[in-house]
């Protein structure tokens, strides 16, 4: 099982993400944004949190047009797994891999704290390790996590069960309390919270570990 973690100038959760993948049994490689191809045999691409390109223009906008982004899109289109927390979620929306966009938090403040999320969909590799309606504590740390999407797309996301995580109490104004979104084939997950920062009790919580274990189990079974 092989995971690649993309690294952009300004990424700051890339090593946390690599540690979380390794803890779940992945061999992990870091891939610089100027690369044009992913390493051979990559099963999962991690798009990390941080402030890629200083959030210039829009969060994730420049990263979504970087050389490695083309390889990322091709990987997703081939049916590869992609896990993208925080800035990664913003990058996937900018790249068109997930619908919607992330706006400035409704309260205008950068929010950094652990929040409860409700797991609403368990039919994905990322969420198979949780029980439906389980509430998990996961850290958030963002200024632009206010998810927005047009109403028709929102209806489709709901109907297709593509909203695996919702905030119990929405901290950032996100439409319908949406904390994360799955792709149509359920193999691409973008979410504002940081499960990779909650994989070990030493971090203050380990509710995020099941996400990485679930992904590993799906690959072993495949």
């Amino acid at each position, binding site marked *: 099982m092989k995971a690649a973690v993309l690294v952009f100038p300004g990424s700051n959760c890339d090593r946390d993400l690599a540690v979380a993948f390794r803890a779940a049994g992945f061999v992990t490689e870091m891939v610089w944004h100027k690369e044009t191809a992913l390493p051979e045999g990559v099963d999962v691409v991690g798009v990390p949190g941080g402030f890629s390109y200083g959030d210039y*223009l*829009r969060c994730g*906008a420049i990263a979504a*047009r970087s050389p490695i982004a083309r390889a990322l899109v091709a990987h997703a289109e081939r049916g590869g797994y992609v896990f993208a927390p925080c800035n990664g979620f913003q990058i996937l*929306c*900018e790249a068109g891999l997930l*619908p*919607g*966009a992330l*706006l*400035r*938090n*409704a*309260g*205008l403040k950068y929010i950094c704290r652990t929040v409860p999320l409700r797991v609403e969909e368990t039919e994905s590799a990322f969420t198979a390790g949780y029980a439906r309606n389980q509430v998990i504590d996961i850290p958030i740390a963002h200024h632009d996590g*206010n998810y*927005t*999407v*047009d109403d028709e797309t929102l209806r489709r996301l709901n109907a297709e069960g593509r909203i695996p995580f919702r905030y119990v109490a929405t901290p950032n*104004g996100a439409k319908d309390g949406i904390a994360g979104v799955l792709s149509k084939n359920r193999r691409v997950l973008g979410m504002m919270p940081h499960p990779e920062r909650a994989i070990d009790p030493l971090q203050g919580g380990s509710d995020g570990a099941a996400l990485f274990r679930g992904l590993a189990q799906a690959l072993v079974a495949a």
Partner: protein
Amino acid sequence: MKAKVTVMLKDGVLDPPGEAVRHALGAMGFDEVEGVRQGKLIELDLAKGTTEADVIAMCEKLLANTVIESYRIEM
């Protein structure tokens, strides 16, 4: 030649920074302000012969996120 691209959030998309500016103006006594929308102005220095269609392509592909933003071009 130059082009000016104005990028604004679409109508109906909440603009929290614009709202904050509106509140601040109201608090300063500018009671006549009924709404504020904040956007970006991007100035491009372009080689001779660049067409408006080229600038539209730049807007569609990078300068605006058309999910939430609209743009206006002045050449």
